[in-house]
């Protein structure tokens, strides 16, 4: 009883916080929130309508006739569409269940071990069970949002399309309520075991990195059209039906849903009750067990530091100032003679921090992986490898497109790396920015150190990347030099712009690296960077190319080329200077 009262008190506090957060937010945030709610409602309605329409269309005579015609042309193509349609809820629930299994771990971990109010709750004279239950269900909140905003409209739309009545709708809602319980229950035990071994923060970083890799895997599959035929066709449709066999609990739920729609109450009772009983019993059992582990201290908040650490060995290479004249072996005055010592200190510090946060590495791995795929495609599609292309004009245009493609890949890789290493610049300092603010270093020097860090991937990674790409494409040396020059100019200009916006609109209190850029900085960066890229590319590539196409004099073409480069250089210098000045102005205004 005391637990229930406490849960109610804590829940009421959460509601107050939510109400106050909205009530005391700026008008802009309020409007954004209302727009977001409206957009979500619109999306849900759209999903519902489209799902219903699609299901109706698949059952319509038009589609059946088209399918019959296709079957007449290809005798092997006679899939059982109705069977596939009836298996759809099972697929959907299985897919949602798989996603919940993975995401619930992170969600429960964050809520049970890493939420900010835990200290306050744990020292309060309230039952530990109440804290555990509240935190546990707070962790499930995101799962329910995901289910009810994305899957509910599709499932309900499916029912409407099939002509099912309210019984189906009610059972569908109950199914979605029960669906996260089993994965969450099992995840709670897993969380306890993991936090017993490693610190909660590290566990979260590892899970985020694994999540990124998983997403990368899915994306990789979607980028490979060669793999697509394997998923389309009669055999594959039939093989998908194999998943409709009742081996896994979500399939039971799917079958119960169809039974509810068809008023087959016996099947509904068998599958529905099996699914509900298993979900509730496993969830209840895990909850009690996990709570017990949390309560007895086997794996509670007090243990979040993981196993007691061994005393670190005093490695000579890590001792303070072991390289008397350098920050690190890499960032020294000899290599960066133009950079003030203070800027060099910031550069060295940021470079050290980067690989120590797994979430940064995850951000860097994904674009690299993506760029690898694009590069393979670029090389495979290059004109040299296409013997059928003999028209010189086509080859010339393709060569230009190849150059732009190489440049685009290199920019993407470098900017993604820059973002992973330095983010929006100042925001990376988080709440430790007071150290820079109270140090005798000008805002301009702070930004200079940050700019060097953001720009570094362009010469360090972009150069070898372009060399490899151009070598594989057998591109001429002059072409490489031109593209390399453009890459460096664009890199410097866009880095300065994003750094400046990050300094004018900083966010120092982020926790998730994906939320370290403010809305204003993101929007303006999305607007200004492409503008700058377009402007510089017009000066360097488009104008001379157009002049050449218009059969201008060689002297004019040369003058336009040189003039374009000169203007591009001057423009970049101006952009960098202006960005640094504006960024410094932003930092000077910043109060902590």
């Amino acid at each position, binding site marked *: 009883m005391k637990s229930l009262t406490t849960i109610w008190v804590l829940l009421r506090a959460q509601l107050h916080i939510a109400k106050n957060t909205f009530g005391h937010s700026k008008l802009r945030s309020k409007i954004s929130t209302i727009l977001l709610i409206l957009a979500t409602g619109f999306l849900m309605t759209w999903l519902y309508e489209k799902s219903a329409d699609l299901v109706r269309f698949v059952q319509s005579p038009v589609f059946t006739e088209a399918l019959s015609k296709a079957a007449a042309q290809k005798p092997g193509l006679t899939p059982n569409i109705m069977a596939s349609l009836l298996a759809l809820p099972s697929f959907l629930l299985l897919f949602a269940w798989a996603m919940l299994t993975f995401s619930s771990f992170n969600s429960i971990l964050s809520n049970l071990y890493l939420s900010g109010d835990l200290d306050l709750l744990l020292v309060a004279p309230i039952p530990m069970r109440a804290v555990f239950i509240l935190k546990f269900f707070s962790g499930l909140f995101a799962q329910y949002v995901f289910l009810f905003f994305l899957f509910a409209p599709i499932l309900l739309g499916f029912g409407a399309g099939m002509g099912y009545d309210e019984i189906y709708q009610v059972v569908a809602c109950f199914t979605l309520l029960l669906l996260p319980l089993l994965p969450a229950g099992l995840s709670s035990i897993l969380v306890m075991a993991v936090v017993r071994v490693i610190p909660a*923060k590290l566990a979260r970083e590892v899970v985020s990195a694994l999540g990124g890799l998983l997403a990368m895997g899915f994306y990789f599959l979607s980028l490979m059209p060669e793999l697509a035929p394997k998923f389309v066709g009669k055999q594959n449709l039939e093989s998908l039906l194999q998943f409709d066999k009742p081996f896994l609990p979500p399939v039971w739920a799917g079958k119960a849903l169809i039974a509810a729609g068809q008023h087959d109450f016996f099947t509904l009772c068998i599958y529905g009750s099996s699914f509900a009983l298993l979900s509730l019993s496993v969830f209840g059992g895990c909850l009690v067990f996990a709570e017990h582990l949390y309560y007895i201290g086997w794996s509670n908040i007090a243990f979040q*530091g993981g196993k007691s*650490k061994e*005393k*670190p060995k*005093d*490695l000579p290479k*890590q*001792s*303070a*100032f072991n390289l*008397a*004249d350098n*920050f690190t072996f890499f960032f020294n005055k000899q290599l960066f003679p133009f950079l003030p*010592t*203070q800027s*060099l*200190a*910031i550069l*060295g*510090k940021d470079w*050290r*921090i980067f690989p*120590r*946060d797994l979430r940064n590495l995850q951000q860097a791995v994904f674009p690299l992986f993506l760029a690898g795929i694009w590069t393979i495609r670029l090389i495979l599609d290059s004109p040299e490898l296409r013997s059928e292309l003999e028209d010189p004009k086509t080859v010339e245009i393709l060569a230009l497109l190849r150059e732009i493609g190489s440049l685009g890949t290199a920019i993407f890789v470098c900017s993604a790396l820059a973002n992973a290493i330095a983010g929006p610049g100042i925001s990376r*300092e*988080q*709440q*430790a920015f*007071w*150290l*820079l*603010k*109270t*140090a*005798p*270093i*000008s805002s301009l020097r702070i930004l200079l150190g940050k700019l060097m860090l953001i720009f570094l991937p362009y010469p360090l990674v972009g150069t070898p990347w372009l060399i490899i790409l151009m070598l594989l494409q057998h591109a001429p040396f002059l072409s490489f030099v031109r593209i390399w020059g453009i890459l460096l100019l664009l890199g410097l200009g866009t880095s300065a712009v994003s750094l400046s916006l990050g300094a004018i609109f900083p966010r120092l209190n982020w926790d998730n690296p994906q939320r370290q850029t403010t809305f204003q900085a993101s929007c303006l960066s999305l607007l200004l960077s492409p503008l700058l890229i377009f402007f510089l590319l017009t000066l360097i590539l488009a104008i001379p190319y157009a002049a050449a196409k218009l059969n201008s004099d060689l002297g004019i073409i040369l003058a336009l080329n040189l003039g374009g480069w000169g203007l591009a250089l001057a423009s970049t210098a101006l952009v960098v200077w202006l960005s640094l000045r504006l960024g410094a102005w932003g930092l000077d*205004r910043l*109060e*902590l």
Partner: protein
Amino acid sequence: MVTEIASALPVIEAHGLEKLFRENLAVANVNFAVYPGEIVGFLGPNGAGKTTTMKMLVGLLRPSAGQARIAGFDIQSQPLEAKARIGYVPDQPYLPEKLTASEFLEFIAGLYQLDWRIAKQRSEELLRIFGLAERKNELLGGYSHGMRQKAALAGALLHNPQAFFLDEPTVGLDPRSARLIKDILRDVAGRGTAVLMSTHILEIAERMCDRVLILNKGKIIAAGTLQELRAGTDKSLEDIFLTLTGGAEETELAEALR
């Protein structure tokens, strides 16, 4: 001691400092000076404006009016000269979590452009004094609050500041560490550094400070040595503090409830 101090030029100066947050005047016309070798306690109830004043003095906040000067340099118009002479430890010292203590000091040395060899020697010495030498290669993120506080103190002292600001320096520290900080403050002041320290622990202020400033509702309501504040009576600093900040009623209420 007081005569010696008064003859020197002040290191920390607040001239008519004011800070307005929207319509709320957090600090109103604050004037004081701290001289070399002096330890000044900054006292006041919660929300009195101590941290805001301190933040204006170190350059984290811009004053709405008035001037903050460090060793004669205006923190707003000559920030680099002023900041080079400041050491500051906030009440919640957020530090770069993914740096080790030794790397953190290396970073600070770079920011303050210290001579490498001297900085190396001094950082080793500070790490030893603060008991962090054995754990200098551990990430600061793994440090306890007290250890972070010590790391922040080591960073603030690395460049031998002329003006040392501490916001609640003993909060969250064990008695041994609190004693260590007291000893270090005496040592630092003994070498001519002006120390301004905000604290709620009146015992510390009573035992350590040459002078105290009592701030209430953004204004300095009393300033002077302990003897001056007592004005011939045998009142404790706590009594004086409660009388001046209107806490006497609460004391009476607390006694009535007993």
